[in-house]
């Protein structure tokens, strides 16, 4: 009697928890979708005056009736890709150094430093940027104010690296020790260990770290506001000041609620949203296809 009762309690609590998980998932998905719907709704009035193509391709000159965010898209694109270009190889190298190459003590020290860096507030990085990096860039190139794509990308690279390194390290240490032993016993060198076991085995983790960094770089507002210069003109070189989509949103927030300027921030939001979604999905697909065909790959 009690046994049956006990069983029932067990299964119903199992049911409950399943329901809870389902509910959490549904709420999460709904929230994400409704944020998107909300942005589209609020952006609609703008699209009725201004065609989407114009918005995406025109320059930003509200006094001439031009509300295009194209320069900001370029600015974002330049800063994000440059910072990833710098940060990804550095982070991967750093993770390999900590995991495989450095002597035990140095490795532990570096690991701690990286962990600490993830906790530093973005605005601190911004300060360092303004008072240290920006003057340096100005001196080096003796052109412009130093508040430019290059400065922002360098700083952003510093900001996103620690997270990436930690994710990489996590995925390196998840490699089964038995595979490493097998390779050692076959006479594999450290290099072969890295290229043939660690990196292929950590593929998923590497992609995840890259995606996290990409999201962080794309979404960052503080660095862009503080050191990218916020110029609305179309950038032409890495030393030009730019405004990113995120910085644009933050700057225009203060403007009149009914103005067209204000409505453009919803367009920016939509672009950022879609951008992240498309990049994430395509990287995941790429990875999935690669994983499927990796059987034929030689070790």
């Amino acid at each position: 009697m009690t046994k049956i009762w006990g069983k029932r309690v067990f299964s119903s609590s199992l049911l409950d928890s399943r329901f809870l998980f389902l509910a959490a998932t549904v709420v999460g998905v709904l929230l994400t979708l409704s944020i998107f719907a909300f942005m589209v709704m609020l952006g609609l009035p703008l699209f009725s005056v201004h065609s989407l193509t114009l918005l995406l391709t025109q320059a930003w000159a509200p006094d001439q009736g031009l509300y295009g965010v194209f320069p900001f898209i370029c600015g974002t694109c330049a800063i994000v890709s440059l910072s990833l270009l710098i940060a990804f190889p550095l982070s991967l190298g750093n993770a390999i150094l900590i995991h495989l190459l450095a002597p035990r003590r140095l490795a532990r020290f570096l690991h701690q430093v990286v962990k600490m860096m993830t906790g530093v507030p973005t605005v601190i990085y911004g300060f360092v940027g303004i008072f240290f990096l920006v003057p340096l860039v100005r001196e080096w190139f003796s052109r412009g104010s130093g508040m430019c794509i290059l400065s922002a990308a360098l700083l952003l690279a510093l900001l996103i690296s620690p997270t990436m390194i930690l994710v990489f390290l996590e995925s390196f240490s998840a490699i089964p020790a038995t595979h490493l032993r097998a390779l050692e016993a076959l006479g594999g060198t450290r290099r072969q260990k890295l290229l043939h076991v660690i990196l292929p085995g950590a593929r998923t983790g590497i992609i995840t770290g890259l995606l996290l960094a990409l999201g962080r770089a794309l979404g960052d507002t503080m660095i862009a506001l503080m050191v990218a210069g916020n110029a609305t003109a179309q950038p032409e070189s890495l030393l030009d000041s730019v405004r990113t989509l995120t910085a644009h949103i933050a700057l225009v927030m203060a403007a009149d609620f009914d103005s067209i300027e204000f409505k453009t921030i919803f367009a920016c939001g939509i672009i950022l949203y879609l951008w992240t979604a498309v990049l994430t999905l395509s990287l995941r697909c790429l990875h999935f296809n690669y994983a499927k065909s990796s059987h034929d790959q030689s070790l």
Partner: protein
Amino acid sequence: MDSARSRLQVDRNHRKTVGEVFVENPRLTCRDIDVFYGEKQAIKNVSLDIAGNEVIAMIGPSGCGKSTFLRCLNRMNDTIDSCRVSGNIVLDDEDINQPGVDVVLLRAKVGMVFQKPNPFPKSIRENVAYGPRIHGLAADRNQLDEIVESSLQKAGLWDEVKDRLDDSGTSLSGGQQQRLCIARSIAVSPEVILMDEPCSALDPIATAKIEGLIDELRENFTIIIVTHSMQQASRVSQRTAFFHLGDLIEVGSTRQLFTNPKHQLTEDYITGRFG
């Protein structure tokens, strides 16, 4: 039990290996091997010859140093930070325990099979081809395919996998995986193969297959096998070495050691009085 313990105390003071430590024309010569993990000594002054084309079994209670001794022979102890190995281990007129020795070449000469089958998460073909590839043993694709086929054949796996060479190595059964690992290690044509409890994760049928295989491999390789099963030792080996607390207590022909042990500890162990 208690009497075994007390005998053990007495024996600690004079532990010289009894039996036939030396052989004529040894393939592998070990002299005065000491192994320390930090302060703790795991192998105590062990000397042992291993002949070519023999299967020698290492038995002894858990923690007596069988795996540690085995790992000296392909320098796998190098990968353990706290581990220090001293003594001479001569293979082909070269002392492989010297710092200058190229461990990559050594490990091509001394292969190893582990307790748990550990194929790479790659195709069956790639698992076997990997060793020859990194050691540059094949001039072209055809030659590599030949090595893969002959290794799988020697490991008694060819007929079971010849139609699915591109399937993942991990899709095989445990026993097949272990034979794949054996094929992987013989693909680089080693002289010696070390096996650390190669059947302990396998069922009796898979175990019987591997044991049969070991007997066939003896023709071309010297095999050193650690086992917890005395039946297995007597089925596959010609000589047996009994370790106890880091000492090599007794070595002898397998038949003699199991039927007529010379040392009291050996007798206690094989009759199941401790261990």
